[in-house]
């Protein structure tokens, strides 16, 4: 049993048997490094747990309640800001329309009706065109092609959703 043997055992804080213990005591008289290691291990084995001051759990409950209150207030404040900004943007966007309707209500009403009718007819036309295109392409594309397209979009959606979930988990990670 040489210095290296004792040093390794002390660095790993391994137990010594009776014979090793006797040899160690002799070695420690001459080896300051091993003596320091032995002292550290001894001191570490004597340590005691620190205890928090009385009423720790009560203080925790109070902190939890305060945190919840602050969170609620933050959500409320955030919601109010969002609502105010949304209303402001809406008013800003609608201001030309509002001013026009104030200037000439009958003209504004007629314009509104004609715009609505135009939008409705545009939608009908687009629907009919879409139906015709679908009928034509359906004949060209084989069933396997449709299946492939469907699987592709399904896979892409799944990938997107799982990425979102992973990103969300990472944000919430400790």
């Amino acid at each position, binding site marked *: 049993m040489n210095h290296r043997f004792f040093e390794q055992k002390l*660095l790993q804080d391994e137990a010594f048997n009776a014979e090793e213990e006797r040899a160690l005591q002799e070695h420690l008289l001459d080896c300051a490094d091993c003596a320091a290691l032995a002292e550290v291990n001894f001191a570490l084995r*004597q340590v005691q747990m620190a205890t*928090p001051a009385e009423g720790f759990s009560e203080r925790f409950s109070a902190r939890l309640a305060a945190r919840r209150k602050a969170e609620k207030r933050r959500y409320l404040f955030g919601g109010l800001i969002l609502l105010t900004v949304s209303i402001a943007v809406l008013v800003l966007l609608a201001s030309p329309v509002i001013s026009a309707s104030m200037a000439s209500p009958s003209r504004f009403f007629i314009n509104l009706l004609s715009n609505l009718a135009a939008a409705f007819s545009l939608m009908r036309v687009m629907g009919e065109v879409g139906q015709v295109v679908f009928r034509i392409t359906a004949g060209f594309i084989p069933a396997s092609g449709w299946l492939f397209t469907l699987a592709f979009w399904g896979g892409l959606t799944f990938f997107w959703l799982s990425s979102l979930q992973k990103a969300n988990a990472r944000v919430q990670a400790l």
Partner: protein
Amino acid sequence: MDEERAWILQAQQGSDEAFTRLVETYQRSVYNLCYRMLGDAYKAEDAAQESFLRAYKNLHRYDSNRSFATWLLSISAHYCIDSLRKKKLSTFSLYDDEGSPREYLADHAALHPEGAVLKKAQEAEMQVLLQSLKETDRAAIILRYWHDASEKEIAETLGITVSAVKSRLHRARRKLAELLTAKEKSPSRAERMSYESPIF
């Protein structure tokens, strides 16, 4: 253990009372880890409370196959390591802001006052030496000696491999021994004789 599982389950379903029971059970372990890591009673209290808050917030993500103590101490250790890295706490005083010695040995043997004083001095010395270790090494030593954690448990708590734990413990013991030797050689300790060491 079953009782603990029931509390965890109830806490996951939103019972504050069940979580308070968990706090009462683990407050000492968490506080001790924080205190040994940060070396300050006030900061330790704050860190322990914050650790429990984080645990409460993330309770839905606790895996019941894992030990709750390991999971909780992991949160606590990471919190302390992060705050140490952020604030770069480089110094630790044995005395609090008012100049009184820190009171952290709550339940010391009062039967042998001399022994208790000596032990308290050793504890204080060890606490000072601990602050010289790197954050993760310090956490490994605290978990090993104050929490009786196995190398595997330390690895799980700190999120490192078992061999990394071994080498960190190895390195920490060597560093502590070097610091102790340096301290012994310092003028203030010159009068201390080798036979006064607890191992002799």
